[in-house]
């Protein structure tokens, strides 16, 4: 029984990524707890090591700036996790990042580099605010209006990004380019309506849609200042993890991601899988847009364009496109952003410092991908002979 459960990390790298399965497939039948522990230890040690190396490189950068790395990391801790306010700040910021990370990860598993989550977020948020206008004026009960708004946001975001998947499959259009360009179109569509037909006449100097009103807003998780988008993100991450690892759909998607031509030859419905995965991605981003409107702004306006969709790309890469791993990575980014202000204020450093740290982490973690399977201590003894 146990012997079948051995394939070690990474569960599903991008096509072309270095895979460890080559090491484990030919391992003897006697897979022990020790082997599993080694695989687990490798999956933990390499990212943690990469984070430590990133911290060291960043410390050198700080020393060159004449700032104390100790102060920096103390403040990072204090601003990100040090007080109950800091933790809530971190988690609140992580909420949209989780959903946008998922929006990149799911297409990535089927081999698509889809970078248009920002556009789906904007259109999703906008459509939620737009459909709220008749719902609110018509006096539709809140319990009904809220799910309609959320579903509308997911449907619009999903349909928007599904176009990317369909274009890729049916017309061979590069999904990276098309999704990026569609982001600009999405923002233009929102601006067109927000500054025109759907503009609240009261929003003179900042064009916005009609406010949905306090009653129709999503509240906070009781006892906290964190909106429900965080819970939605966690639930979706778990659900998508199950979908991608425990169902035939997920298996077929990952096979397609490994080699689309081989998947076609096997008779897998590659086109439908691509459209489905991109639709799921768009729905995640659209839901993030719904929470931006229904939990934060109360209306749609240019503030929806906040760059969460693009940060999601980074997060998904660091989580190796693994839905569950997106959760801790998004929290880490939430903490970096939450503490950014405190660091600016106390250490008199420019805002871009946080971007430097994010960039270093990104490069070091991606570089560390090449280390899997290279440390003898993490290999089974049979595997160790390879090096």
């Amino acid at each position, binding site marked *: 029984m146990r012997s079948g459960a051995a394939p070690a990390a990474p569960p599903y790298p991008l096509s072309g990524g270095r895979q460890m399965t080559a090491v484990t497939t030919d391992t003897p039948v006697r897979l022990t707890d*020790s082997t599993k522990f*080694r695989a687990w*230890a490798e999956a*933990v*040690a390499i990212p*943690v*090591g990469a*984070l*430590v190396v990133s*911290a*060291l490189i960043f*410390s050198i950068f700080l020393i060159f700036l004449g700032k104390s790395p*100790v*102060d920096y*990391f*103390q*403040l*990072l*801790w*204090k*601003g990100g996790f040090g*007080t109950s*306010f*800091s933790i809530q*700040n971190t988690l*609140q*910021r992580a909420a949209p990042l989780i959903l946008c990370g998922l929006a990149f990860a799911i297409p990535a598993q089927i081999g698509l580099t889809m970078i248009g989550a920002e556009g789906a977020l904007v259109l999703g948020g906008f459509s939620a605010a737009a459909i709220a206008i008749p719902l609110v004026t018509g006096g539709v009960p809140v319990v009904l209006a809220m799910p309609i708004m959320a579903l509308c946001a997911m449907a619009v975001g999903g349909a928007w990004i599904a176009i990317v998947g369909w274009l890729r499959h049916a017309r061979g259009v590069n999904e990276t380019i098309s999704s990026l360009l569609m982001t600009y179109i999405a923002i233009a569509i929102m*601006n067109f309506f927000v*500054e025109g037909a759907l503009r609240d006449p009261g929003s*003179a*100097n*900042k*064009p916005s849609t009609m406010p949905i009103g306090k009653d129709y807003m999503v509240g906070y998780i009781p006892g906290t200042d964190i909106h429900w988008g965080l819970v939605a993100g966690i639930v979706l991450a778990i659900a998508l993890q199950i979908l991608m690892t425990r169902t035939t759909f997920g298996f077929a998607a990952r096979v397609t991601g490994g080699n689309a031509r081989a998947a076609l030859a096997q008779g897998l419905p590659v086109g439908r899988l691509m459209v489905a995965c991109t639709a799921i991605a768009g729905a995640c981003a659209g839901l993030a847009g719904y929470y*931006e409107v229904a939990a*934060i*702004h*109360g209306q749609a*306006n*240019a*503030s929806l364009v*906040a*760059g969460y969709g693009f940060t999601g790309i980074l997060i998904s890469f660091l989580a190796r496109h693994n839905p569950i791993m997106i959760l801790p990575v998004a929290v880490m980014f939430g903490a970096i*952003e*939450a503490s950014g*202000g*405190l660091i*600016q*204020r*106390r*250490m008199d450093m*420019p*805002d*871009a410092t946080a971007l430097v740290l994010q960039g270093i982490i990104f490069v070091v973690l991606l570089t560390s991908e090449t280390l899997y399977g290279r440390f*003898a*201590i*993490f290999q089974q003894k049979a595997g160790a002979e390879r090096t």
Partner: protein
Amino acid sequence: MSIHGVSRRTLLKAGAAGLASTALPLGAIRSAQAADVIVGAVYVGPRDDFGWNQAHAVAMEILKGVDNVEVIEEENVPETDAVAKSMESMINLDGANLILATSFGYYKPFVLDLAKKYPDVQFRHAAPLWNADTDPKNAGSYFCYLNQAHYVDGVAAGLSTTTNKIGFVAAKPIPSVLSNINSVLLGARSVNPEATVQVIFTGEWSMPVREAEAANALADAGCDVLTCHVDGPKVVIETAEARGVKSCGHNASQAPLAPKGFITGAEYKWETIYTMYADMLAAGEELPNFVAGGYHNDMVRNTAYGAGATPEAIKAADAAIEGLKAEKPIYVGPLKDNKGNVVIDKTYDNYDPVLDGMNYLLEGVSGSIT
């Protein structure tokens, strides 16, 4: 073999080292000092943007010199819940007792919500949005009528142009922008009845590529003075200088960007308001909920004249400034818009609320707001 054990131990050690480097409180952190007044300012862009944010940062720099005042600042804070958290962090972690929220979109809902949550902290926002009937009493607005300084720009530009065409790169057709465009026209017309203003809207507050395209298009169309109302005027002023045409600035001083063609520029003088707030807080007085002004109460200024300003332009602009200090009206009615409708029926005071709802371009401005 003990490889296994060693790896685990090494792993633990490495993990502990990693945690120590990030987590443990190893020494005293510089904290907000025990000043009487701790002022926290939040900016939507970088502090050195040659524009809106720099104008605020310059004023905060002056505030730092005031006794008993501690200044904390945060830049590049977007108009999302990030700003709510930034302000809350200044209150919770730094003990700020006055928050200056300097970007338009910070007010609703973020400033309003936090003002209710923290009734002992004062919040002031840089746009005329505070509503005495509905908004918390510890919130408020401050605002400067920059169009008065743009009127002076117009006077200087009207005497500096030879083609009688002044180019204006504008962000969005909203009242505060339209008022600046119309004021440039009226200033120019006051000294040069032939002067016209050509406007191009970029549609975004900050879109450097489009701003450069617009500036080039205006120069190609024969405009020999360019000015603008965008968040960061740097690109417009630099493009004007590169094209060999003169320029007038906006928000902060752009004089260093155009050593040959800079005439003057419309600048905010936020320090008048900020030092007043700090003094009142230190004295234990209640802050006013609404502060607005222009030349007559020292809240705007024009940048020192550059090489592009002719002696007669300087003379006329100085006279215009004296007029504004004496509250001489800019909008002398009746005035028509550029479609021929009478939009200003009579002469309005420079601070009349009717002008705050401006949604037209005056006759003499070529361009469309739709």
